[in-house]
């Protein structure tokens, strides 16, 4: 019993030291061809889009989180990213975002062939596509759109999120099987767009009954180029090509989403070639692969690296209902006490450039004069200026204990973070250190996500850091910044400013694009001037695709899976055991 054990142990030790020795003594390969510039930039070469598409093959994609359910109507189907990537090719919407028009992303017809918006902007008429059938063989018509809207509007159903999205919906009717007329309470520039691109169209028959227990929650039925095949909990979700798709048919036979939550494990599988499309590469792995050494060569040789800016950013917020955070001087001072360069390089590894803008940065809504990295209007790390501002705001160290105070109260604040965040765990001590030098005591409180969201909602915090992300290029930001959203909306920081309220209301009703952009830029400047949020980095998707994958075109709403094709479609990797890496 003992000897085998001891043997295993020594074997490990020898092997491990053997490896390091070999590494040290092995002669350096004189010339390693390092990665190309495209590869370093995470840009896809034009050749990805060239060539004649081949049919067939299985495309394996890493999924870093398992969705709770695949029905986006349900409150539990709100893991937008996972649900949209998986369900997007299965369940279609009336329109989609047109990637040919990036970064504006205009609407492109899908199940609606065309649509009209009335002159008063309060009625949208959708003309539906004829001859479309659902995967279960039923024909698609206006009754299905109506059934979906009925389910959303039913107060007894857990569709509060979708109901919130369609808050401006006044009513709808279906005068004939191919027409849906939607009425809006107010002319809102986003309303039609959100209804058309977010609301999934299921067959009416699939929505009968209690939404909690519908079959489509785990096995969605739609009209898309792929049909749902199976979901093995914790392991994989699989789609197969819809051979009777009404539009241009997909190329690959099958898509396998492999659920691998752990980043380290996913990285190992990536190295072993388990994924055609590796998603959410951990930043340190992304950077590590850039080092010019032989053991990274597989990555440059076999994979395209894809870095695509998402509409997502991180921010720090203060509870402005609590003194002293309502004072803009204090917020601006704290913003100047953030060592931006150190954070950008040290924590975000240069992958998340610091932003100033709550809108989609690649679109026209951000004022380029402010968002430009070298803009003189940007706040920089400037402790001296910050200290002067704090003095001016009345926060001075009167008792000489090294901590600023005001009316006998020391400048103490608590940074509420959720335990699962790695980056915040690194950010907090950096800020603690910087702010202590400026006479501010920062405490850190870690709580789990459920507690965190409750504290946010009840405004029971001094300081938090969160990220917002959207799968669309357009947003009115009403819910984040309007004073009416303090009570039970997402204006968590309790920012109240009638001037911003007026702008946010104006933007919603503004249908003229140029005038709307002007308003949006005003909002951008005001939000930054007042440091409603202290803006941090803008996030990018970090993916890699095997060079055998073609037709890849990242967009704000991810890749279009029906467009992807494989160089050498491998026969179904079925019935092979040991050869496959999983």
């Amino acid at each position: 019993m003992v000897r085998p054990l001891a043997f295993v142990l020594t074997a490990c030790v020898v092997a491990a030291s053997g490896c390091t020795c070999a590494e040290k003594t092995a002669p350096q390969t004189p010339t390693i061809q390092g990665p190309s510039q495209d590869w370093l930039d995470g840009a896809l070469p034009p050749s990805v889009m060239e060539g004649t598409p081949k049919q067939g093959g299985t495309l394996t994609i890493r999924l870093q989180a398992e969705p709770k359910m695949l029905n986006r109507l349900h409150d539990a189907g709100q893991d937008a990213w996972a649900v949209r990537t998986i369900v997007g090719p299965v369940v279609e919407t009336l329109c989609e975002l047109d990637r040919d028009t990036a970064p504006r992303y205009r609407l492109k017809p899908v199940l609606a062939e065309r649509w009209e918006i009335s002159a008063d902007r309060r009625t949208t008429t959708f003309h539906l596509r004829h001859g479309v059938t659902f995967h279960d063989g039923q024909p698609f018509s206006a009754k299905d759109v109506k059934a979906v809207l009925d389910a959303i509007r039913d107060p007894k159903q857990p569709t509060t999120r979708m109901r919130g999205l369609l808050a401006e919906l006044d009513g709808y009717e279906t005068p004939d099987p191919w027409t849906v007329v939607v009425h809006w309470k107010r002319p809102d520039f986003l309303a039609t767009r959100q209804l058309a691109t977010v609301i999934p169209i299921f067959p009416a028959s699939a929505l009968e009954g209690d939404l909690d227990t519908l079959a489509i929650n785990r096995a969605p039925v739609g009209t898309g180029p792929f049909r749902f095949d199976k979901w093995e909990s914790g392991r994989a979700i699989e789609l197969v090509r819809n051979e009777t798709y009404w539009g241009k048919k997909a190329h690959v036979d099958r898509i396998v989403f492999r659920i691998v939550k752990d980043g380290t494990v996913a990285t190992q599988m990536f190295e072993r070639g388990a994924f055609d499309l590796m998603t959410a590469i951990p930043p340190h792995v992304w950077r590590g692969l850039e080092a010019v050494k032989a053991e990274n060569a597989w990555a440059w040789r076999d994979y395209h690296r894809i870095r695509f800016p998402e509409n997502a950013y991180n921010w720090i917020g203060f509870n402005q209902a609590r003194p002293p955070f309502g004072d803009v001087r204090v917020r601006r001072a704290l913003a100047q006490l953030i060592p931006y360069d150190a954070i950008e390089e040290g924590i975000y590894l240069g992958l998340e450039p610091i932003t100033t803008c709550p809108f989609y940065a690649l679109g026209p809504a951000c004022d380029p004069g402010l968002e430009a990295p070298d803009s003189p209007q940007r706040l920089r790390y400037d402790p001296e200026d910050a200290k002067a501002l704090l003095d001016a705001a009345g926060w001075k160290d009167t008792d000489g204990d090294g901590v600023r105070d005001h009316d006998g109260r020391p400048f103490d604040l608590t940074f509420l973070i959720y335990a699962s965040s790695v980056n915040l765990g690194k950010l907090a001590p950096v800020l603690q250190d910087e702010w202590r030098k400026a006479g501010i005591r920062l405490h850190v409180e870690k709580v789990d996500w459920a507690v965190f969201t409750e504290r946010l909602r009840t405004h029971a915090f001094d300081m938090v850091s969160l990220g917002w992300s959207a799968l669309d290029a357009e947003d009115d930001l009403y819910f984040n910044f309007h004073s009416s959203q303090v009570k039970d909306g997402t204006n968590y920081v309790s920012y109240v400013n009638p001037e911003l309220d007026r702008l946010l209301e104006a933007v919603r009703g503004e249908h003229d694009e140029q005038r709307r952009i002007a308003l949006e830029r005003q909002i951008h400047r005001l939000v930054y001037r007042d440091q409603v949020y202290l803006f941090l980095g803008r996030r990018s998707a970090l993916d890699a695709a095997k060079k055998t994958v073609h037709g890849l075109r990242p967009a704000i709403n991810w890749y279009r899976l029906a467009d992807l094709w494989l160089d050498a479609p491998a026969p179904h990797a079925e019935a092979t055991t040991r050869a496959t890496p999983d």
Partner: protein
Amino acid sequence: MGRYVLRRALLMIPTFFGITLLTFAVAQLAPGDPLQLSAEAPRAGQTAALEALRHQRGLDRPLWVQYGRWVGRVLSLDFGRSLEDGRPVLEKVGEALPRTLLLTTLALFLSYLIAVPLGAWAAVRRDTFAERAVTVVLFVLYSMPSFWVAITLLLVLSGGRGWAVFPLQGLTSPGFDQLSPAAKVADLLWHVALPVAVLTYGSLAVLSRYMRGAMLETLRSDFIRTARAKGLAERSVVFRHALRNSLIPIVTLLGLTLPALVGGSVIVERIFGIPGMGELAFESILNRDYPVVMGVTTLVALFTLAATLLSDVLTAAVDPRIDLERAG
């Protein structure tokens, strides 16, 4: 014996309610709200909608009413549905439990298989150099955190730059359904090798120390001296007399380790991509998914109670000196 078992079984009923009531109260009193969590970013005017949903699901009732309803349903074996995805709790548990049982029973079997002879050997050879060396090795193993060992094993034995002998994730290979029965078993064993190793190594030290202690005590007892005195071969003394008598505390210990069988391990399950009971319990607690939390707790509570009873009965079975009828 029969009467004793019956009385113990009846006593388990109040204990069971105590456990579930406590879990129910702790789960519900913890801050956080399942409905708010799933609605994520609330919009103005949504509070009323959420209140309506909360009412519909009975989450606004006083705790004792909710607990009463839960007990009522459980008595008819209805554990309710997950607040997360609407699936029946029993279905979710039924999916997770076999995976966990496969890992934990194998690990338990393996650790006893190794620890019992190892402990006996250590007692017989106590204070020799070899025994001390083994003790050191066992304690080193015992002190290594399992997440670190799991990741290291993955990197070395399954990783892209390691030897890639074992699979990285899951219990089965693609196309498992088409395999022959023998190949299925081989495939499963190949997949569980690393997770079972991680679950096993840590308990070796504890178990073998127990075994060693028990064995030492037995070896010092009078009947062993008698056995030696009457000229029995050392082999016979150790194996026939001492070993069997030293198993009593180990059997008791077995009863206490049984609950861990159904509990599973979050770390091992997550790293090796085998979503079992540990992961289910962990996720449901994070999501405040009360019906699932309660379902898992009930199962583990039942198992613990049954295991304690079983270990008492087993102790009596291996040790004729214990008479449950009279002692109870």
